[in-house]
């Protein structure tokens, strides 16, 4: 009886993971396929990775994506942290509920609507679309995720510690710099990583807000895939997966070592 239950639980777990990760595993495996046919295994070969290096458009797109992610995550983290501090620490101010709702809204708003409205805004402002419009759009999207993560952390910490800092002679600015921000730092870093990966894999918003010469990697991959899936796309996708996985690993290791040090 217990055995049966245990077996059932394990099979559900395995089925779930297979469902989630089998396509990704296939994608990774076929990126090393020697054959041009996506569905036929023709032996191991790194040839698509080498072909990738020669594909200037793809490489450019990858660098644009990385730069957009890097810069927009910086903006998102700065803005999101400010919003989180306002929500978690300033007490009640006029319009607080509205502010909280508006900071959180992009979490649930369909990306298409966000992309479209940003496009309309940029058109109305007559802003040339390109790198910076994508950065702004991604910063807007990322900041609410950062705000949620940082706010969560701040609300878990006794409010009176900032009061204690001020009581001991720290000005409000010093209390922020020496007490609030260091305490929130792990969550701020986590927020940055989150905003970075969200920006890296965003397709919808980038499509609306990009301009000529600023095609991001997901957009490039999508347009190529429409012409037929080449193993080269598998290769670039594998690189992206590897990159995000490495980023998450570094973040986890940094956390673990900080824990161990204390």
């Amino acid at each position, binding site marked *: 009886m217990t055995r049966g239950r245990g077996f059932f639980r394990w099979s559900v777990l395995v089925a779930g993971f297979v469902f989630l990760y089998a396509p990704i595993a296939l994608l990774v495996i076929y990126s090393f396929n020697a054959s041009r046919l996506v569905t036929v295994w023709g032996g191991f070969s790194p040839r698509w990775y080498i072909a990738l290096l020669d594909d200037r458009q793809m490489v450019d797109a990858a660098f644009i994506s990385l730069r957009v992610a890097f810069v927009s995550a910086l903006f998102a983290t700065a803005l999101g942290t400010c919003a989180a501090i306002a929500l978690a620490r300033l007490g009640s101010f006029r319009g607080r509920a509205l502010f909280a709702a508006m900071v959180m809204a992009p979490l649930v708003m369909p990306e298409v609507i966000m992309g479209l409205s940003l496009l309309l805004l940029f058109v109305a402002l007559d802003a040339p679309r390109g790198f910076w419009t994508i950065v702004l759009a991604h910063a807007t999207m990322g900041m609410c995720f950062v705000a949620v993560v940082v706010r969560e952390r701040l609300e878990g910490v006794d409010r009176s*510690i900032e*009061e*204690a*800092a*001020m*009581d*001991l002679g*720290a000005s409000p600015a*010093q209390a922020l710099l020496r007490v609030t921000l260091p305490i929130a730092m792990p969550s701020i870093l986590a927020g940055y990583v989150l905003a970075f990966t969200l920006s890296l894999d965003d397709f919808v918003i980038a499509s609306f807000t990009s301009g000529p010469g600023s095609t991001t990697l997901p957009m490039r991959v999508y347009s190529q895939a429409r012409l037929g899936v080449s193993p080269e796309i598998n290769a670039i996708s594998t690189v992206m997966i590897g990159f995000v996985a490495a980023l998450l690993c570094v973040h986890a290791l940094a956390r673990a070592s900080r824990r161990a040090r204390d």
Partner: protein
Amino acid sequence: MSSSDPLIRVDSVRKRFGGVTAVDDLSLDIGHGEFFALLGPSGCGKTTLMRMIAGFETPDEGRILLDGEDIAATPPHRRPVNMMFQSYALFPHMNVERNIAFGLERERMPRADIAARVDEMLRLTQLEPLRRRRPDQLSGGQRQRVALARALAKRPRLLLLDEPLAALDRKLREETQFELMEIRRGLGMSFMLVTHDQNEAMAMADRIAVMREGRIEQMGPAREVYRMPATRWAAGFIGEINLFEAIALRDASAGQACDMRLRDAPEAAPISLTCDAPLRAGQEVAVAVRPENLALRRGAPGAACLRGDVVELAFRGDTTLARVRLPSGFVARANAPGAGGESLTRGEAVCLSFDVAAARVLAS
């Protein structure tokens, strides 16, 4: 500023939180170098009062004066007042040493002086072996000592201590009490202490205020508050006390002796006691007597004596606490010195008497 000004004067201060009046028209002074203790039940506004003095709450009404000057416009970090928070509020990302040094660094004290002061505080609070630990690696009592050390380190003119020793064991608590009194003597700082432990307040404070629902019920020198409670409530709150119901037999003005009859000794001769408030004939009052002032004799029905039966005996080392049920059903507590108490048995008829000088009439 004149030299006669108190260090802190709280002048008719009121603070409301929504519908709750946490502090209600409260006035008090704390003198230079004074040790002031605040006693009161949970939720009576002690922390709120301290937070207003430290600058974290703004009074709705009234003023707070430091050296005779209104400090309403002074932000917390500029007030020469430090507070030890009831929740400790330690900095979780700093170790014990850095927590204690934080306030000194803000003053831009030279490094060597900071190190010396931190060492001194660590020694004082017996935290030396834990100096590199972070707050989440400490026990509750250890955290409390860090909070105390951190607040003390700056040597403020007024130190606000919100239940500073509640989490310490008895021995450590007594040692720390002693250390605090030493520090206060050495540095001439003023202290305001919130405590739920009356013995602590009695032992350390020059003056005590008993708070109730945001107001001061009674304030005065520690001994006086204990010996001469002003109201039934204050009497019951501080220490153990017997409140015997009595009836005034004639009118008397305040300060005049008045005859009264104890309800539990109807046939005894009336006793004559002085009351602070005017009394009317027939008015019901309470006669308050501390257990240690209540003499207990066996059997022998004397003249002015309350007769009753022993219902319970608790040996407390040098004395025996006897609970004696009187005819009205009131259970009085009396301390019999060791030798007399040990031979008592439960159910025995005894007789209680007291010296009128040790009794106090409470009209309210």
